[in-house]
């Protein structure tokens, strides 16, 4: 069975959100009862600079179809400078992954502040749609995830 043609297939998308901005923004989206696709799971981190690029590799390896890293806008970091490091790390990471055959849409980063609930919703919706269009991640995942995709 080809998973790609399965209309019921839902991608698994992991979002690392910094506690001070994006996680707050996501909470605000909830408070405002905004709606977005169910296929995004959030991992809370104190700062986007806490996200080790190896976490992203791990997610792909374990069968995630897409990964999103979100933090405060540059200049607004709760820890003053963390997201500047995030910015460098993940611009390079994205390019390295693309170079290894992974579509850059599968790994994205975005600045979303605590008040930008709508931006969180829109980002998640857009990423979700993009990854759904790309189909399951077969390139990097451990073999048993590539066959069938269902657990």
């Amino acid at each position: 069975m080809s998973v790609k043609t399965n209309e019921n297939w839902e991608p698994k998308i992991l979002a690392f959100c910094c506690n001070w901005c994006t996680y707050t923004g996501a909470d605000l989206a909830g408070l405002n009862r905004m709606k977005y696709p169910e296929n995004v799971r959030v991992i809370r981190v104190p700062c986007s600079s806490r996200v080790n690029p190896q976490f992203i590799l791990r997610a792909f390896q374990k069968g995630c179809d897409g990964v999103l890293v979100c933090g405060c806008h540059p200049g607004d970091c709760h820890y003053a400078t963390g997201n500047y490091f995030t910015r460098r790390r993940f611009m390079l990471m994205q390019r390295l992954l693309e170079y290894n055959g992974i579509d850059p849409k599968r790994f994205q980063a975005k600045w979303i502040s605590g008040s930008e609930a709508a931006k969180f919703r829109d980002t998640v919706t857009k990423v979700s749609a993009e990854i759904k269009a790309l189909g399951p991640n077969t390139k990097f995942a451990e073999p048993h995830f590539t066959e069938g995709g269902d657990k």
Partner: protein
Amino acid sequence: MALSEKDIELKIREEAKKALATGEVSCVIGWTTTRFPDKMKPFFAETEAECDELVWNKYCINGTAKYALDDRYPSKKFAIIARGCDSRAINRMLKDKQLLRENLYIIGVVCDGKENPICEECQHKNPLTYDVLIGEPVPEQIDEKRFAEVEAFEKLSPDEKYEYWAKQYDKCIHCYACRNACPACNCVECYADQYRTGWQGKASDRIQNQVYGLTRAFHVGDRCIECGECERVCPMGLPIMRQTRKMLKDINDLFGDYECGMPDDAMPVLGGYTLADPDEFM
């Protein structure tokens, strides 16, 4: 007038002896012969007599610098015969605080290339850091094709790229030879050996090898001195430099001219930032 190979060899021996004679140096790291005329091996000359076994010819291809890490807490100095690449390796480890400059006596030798394909791309034939220099400095060339291979590869489709790397990592036997040779891989304990944290599986399958390959590229990418030791020692012939060069190319494109192993104070790219960095995540 350029020194002949033999002249240099004699000078190396002379300087090695001088270094040992000071009493501050425990051994001189260089090369000596093997039973194959076209293979030289790394050699640690500890006595004056052993100094005469040091050789210099176009088969002296092993990097010498990383052997200094064999003893991280030496009681005496190491003397290192350093070509341009070795001096950059030394600078790498100095900046990573894995070596102390006062523990090193660097015998720089101007190198006109060895029987090693990477030497054709060499941008630093003259040692950048040394205590004594053998040979007249030669004009440096700029390798116009430094990123040509990467650029060509970037043009492939995602599937082609993936297929290429899949084939490569299928070959990989997860032996860590690249890590052991690399002057930038200088951690006391590699992340890949920390099974409890679970960064990395031990198995040698495509996925684990890919994870290792990419993680390593990311760990050394902003510190790679482009000596090519990783590829040289790889028993399976993986194009390992192609990953790190990609990182270097992107760094050059995004953050300005960048070359590692220089004798300056610049932090590796991932250890710093500027407010003017490009931003793609708005």
